[in-house]
């Protein structure tokens, strides 16, 4: 099967500090992969290397078989292959909800305003927010903003969706509305990479779990193995699991 995402021996340094150590990883079309690990382990950095938001110093990254970390790479074009959802939503505050969904479609994909709005509205309906289309982001709750952000990413018809801690800035009662949208996406066959601490979501939706610690990929295994064969895991992973699964 064709790999949608391929990382080969990727390393990254911030000055003298190495944040990513020789990370290799293949994700196939239609797979849902959850990346977890303690904070500062490099998860967010790793997911941002996939669409070239974080440059790396060593290794090779491919997205839909196009080289990402290359001086010649047409990054804007490659980035549009992947939709990304951020921890703090990052909606454009000076644009209303529908305009947020149209900007990329019109400027990057070259769609007409009418076509972009039609697509935007159908996506807003899908995340249950079409009645909020004229509001500004600041007028929405966190959960609503994140659902708009997901719709914005989908408006670019991406082949892959990248989620960087999509629920960790949300109030608890808003987490589920976002996870529901993500679960629907996964069911429809979207290729997804999700950095998250939501282990319930991981167990239910993901195909694979990647566990990171100190910039290294420590575990890369099927979901069932990760949660049910705890003795088979590395000590670090066991330690992490025992902490987050206690309650």
């Amino acid at each position, binding site marked *: 099967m064709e790999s949608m995402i391929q990382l080969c021996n990727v390393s990254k340094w911030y000055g003298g500090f190495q944040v990513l150590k020789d990370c290799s990883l293949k994700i196939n079309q239609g797979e849902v992969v959850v990346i977890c690990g303690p904070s500062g382990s490099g998860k967010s950095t790793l997911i*941002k290397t996939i*669409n*070239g*938001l974080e440059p790396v110093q060593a290794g090779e990254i491919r997205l839909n078989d196009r080289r990402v970390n290359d001086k010649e790479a047409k*990054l*804007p*074009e490659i*980035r*549009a292959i*992947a*939709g*990304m959802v*951020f921890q*703090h939503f*990052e*909606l*454009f*505050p*000076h644009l209303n909800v529908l305009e947020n969904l149209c*900007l*990329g479609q019109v*400027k*990057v994909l070259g769609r007409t305003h009418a076509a972009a709005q039609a697509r935007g509205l159908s996506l807003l309906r899908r995340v249950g927010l079409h009645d909020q289309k004229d509001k*500004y982001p*600041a007028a929405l709750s966190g959960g609503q903003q994140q659902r708009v952000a997901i719709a*914005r*990413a989908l408006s*670019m018809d991406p082949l892959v969706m990248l989620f960087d801690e999509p629920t960790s800035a949300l109030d608890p009662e808003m987490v589920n509305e976002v996870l529901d949208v993500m679960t629907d996406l996964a069911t429809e066959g979207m290729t997804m990479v999700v950095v998250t601490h939501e282990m319930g979501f991981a167990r239910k939706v993901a195909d694979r779990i990647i566990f990171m610690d100190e910039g290294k990929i420590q575990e890369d295994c099927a979901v069932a193995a990760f949660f049910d064969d705890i003795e088979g895991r590395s000590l670090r992973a066991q330690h992490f699991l025992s902490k987050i699964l206690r309650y």
Partner: protein
Amino acid sequence: MANLDFSSIPPALGYLFGQGMVVTLMITLVAASGGILLGLILAAMRLSHRRWISVPAVLYINFFRSLPLILIIFTFYFLIPYVLGWVLQSPFPVKVGALNAAFISFTLFEAAYFAEIIRSGIQAVPKGQIFASQAIGLTHWQMLRYVIYPQALRNMIPPLLMRSLILFQDTSLVYVVSLTDFLGAASNIGQRDGTLTELYLFVAASYFVICFVISKLVNRLDQRMKTVR
């Protein structure tokens, strides 16, 4: 207090506002628009990653911010004619004129402050907005044009207006090169009629009303922009 005589003011209003205030407003408008334009260039230079572009802007900004405005006005009025004469190999100092000296010195001086306001307005846009723009595939220029600049503009318009208001007050310094601005016009009248106290009170009240009203309006604008953000 009882023997203050304001009767000389009404007949002088035409002179005070028709001539004095016109000079004040002219310098304010020229220096504000020229200063913002130059400030934009300086801010763009300062934000450049290339040191040979950013360092000259930093030097300029720090240089003009560490000198008293009055010194700069003097310099342009008295010194530049000789420098120009030397540059142009002219046997006489080149006349710059008081009004031109004021235009140039205020513009150059204010540009340093405007540049810092513009720079911080751009830098106040969160880094995540850059990521979000890049992630949907915008090019660098599209990102600046559609995401960063519109937000930066909202950040910087209120402080730019406030700074222009300070500039409006500072223009009264042009008396040192014998230009007759609003304040200068008032002291001319006051000296002629022996009513300096009354005229200065009137000038103070006028400045206060104008600046107070404008600053209230700017505050309201600022509040409105905050709710959009």
